[in-house]
């Protein structure tokens, strides 16, 4: 675990926080993308992808509709993969990898859940910024609009980096030793939790697509059966 790797992880936390709402919303902040980038930075693809896949499938249907503040899977994805990679960088055994993946997903889910108040806090700050900006424009300072936009971006980036740093430190400090000492039990738990989480996430995706339409449910069933038969035939 080098300083450069930690710095890159925190930087990605800030970039993900920006992409999630304030800038462009290109899905660069999705857990699979950030976990893959972190896998490249830390030189450990397997664990990064395992954590990224589970968090991605759970995040896929968490949507920013209207004024709703959904769980912050942008920073959650970075924290999850970051904690798992930091834990596994200390011991490279298979059992530890699985235990690290489990602790990573837990850290990511908790960071995503507790990130909601941080996002709400930013939005409250932006309310004040909006009122100030309108008053400034009416007072003859049109440049206040650009200044307010810059302030919003800087605030989101700083909050992303700061929250990511706190969660990473807590995750590695609290969960790291547990993953090291109880790797066998946690690896067994991962064998159960991974398919359960993926199943939960797939159900959400299916509901997003089907929306009580029989033809779409049939398309799911036919595609699953046909793919399964093809896979079984190719396996032989």
């Amino acid at each position, binding site marked *: 675990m080098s300083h450069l790797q930690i710095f890159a992880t925190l930087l990605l936390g800030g970039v993900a926080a920006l992409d999630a709402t304030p800038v462009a919303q290109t899905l660069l902040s999705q857990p699979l993308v950030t976990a893959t980038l972190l896998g490249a930075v830390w030189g450990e693809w397997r664990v990064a992808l395992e954590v990224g896949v589970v968090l991605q499938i759970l995040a*896929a249907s968490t949507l920013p509709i209207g004024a709703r503040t959904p769980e912050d899977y942008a920073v959650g994805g970075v924290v999850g993969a970051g904690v798992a990679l930091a834990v596994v960088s200390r011991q490279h055994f298979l059992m530890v990898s699985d235990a690290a993946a489990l602790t990573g997903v*837990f850290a990511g889910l908790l960071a995503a859940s507790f990130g909601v108040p941080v996002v709400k806090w930013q939005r409250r700050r932006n309310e004040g910024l909006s009122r100030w900006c*309108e008053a400034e424009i009416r007072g003859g300072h049109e440049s206040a609009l650009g200044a307010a936009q810059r302030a919003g971006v800087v605030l989101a980036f700083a909050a992303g980096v700061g929250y990511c740093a706190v969660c990473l430190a807590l995750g590695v400090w609290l969960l790291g030793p547990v993953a090291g000492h109880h790797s066998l039990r946690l690896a067994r738990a991962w064998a159960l939790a991974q398919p*359960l989480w993926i199943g939960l996430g797939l159900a959400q995706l299916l509901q997003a697509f089907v929306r009580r339409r029989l033809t779409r449910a049939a398309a*799911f069933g036919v595609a699953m059966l046909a*793919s399964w038969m093809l896979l079984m035939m*190719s*396996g032989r």
Partner: protein
Amino acid sequence: MGRLEGADLRRMTVRTLLLQATFNYERQQGLGWAWALQPALERLYPDAAERRERLAGHTAYFNTQPTLASLALGVVAGLEEQCAAGQGPDAGAMTRIKSVLGSSLAALGDRLFWFTLRPFAACLGVLVALGGSWLGAVVLWACYNFLHLGVRLLGVGWGYRLGSAVLGEAQRRRFERLTDRIAVLGAMLVGVTTAWLLAPAGAPQPPVFQVVIAAGLGLGLVVGARPRPSPTEWALGAGALCVVAAWLR
């Protein structure tokens, strides 16, 4: 009185990327909207006092799906051009038009981008990543942004040219057809992903793995329709149960 030029629309397009930079509960995208519209107002209103009044008015509440906001911006820039020529709607009518544009485009955009394309791109990326490839992230990003960035970068120009026809029956039907097709493909993609999880590359997973996936799928279908507890809370609870089960075994 000035007319909008290509350079103004391009500046607006770039600024749409920061539409939600100061997103908040009171005005939502209002400030970002005014920031994106500023190049058009600078061209159309040489009188500083009048321009400031229009700009301040546009900082009021506005909200729509961010990708399709580009279309709304183009339409409103066209209306502002008419206003500057003394023909367009007054301030009250402009507010009502913005409100209708925002809610109508949100209804189309939420369904297309948030409820359908985003889960589709995620599922496609996950399917590729399940094979252990880093390309899953690239596939996810490219699949979503082909449409998202396309509409975002071309939307201001479309909105400006089409005007209120942007909400016409033909456009609406085109969006709905696209949404429907992606949703059918998405349902099939979830089927393919489930089959791959049960028997990756034709080698069936152990029965316990298959049963647990089916249990997760069933649980997700039962609890997913309820707002509380959220899917994330269910995932945390299910994960904690797995840890307890592994500890007690």
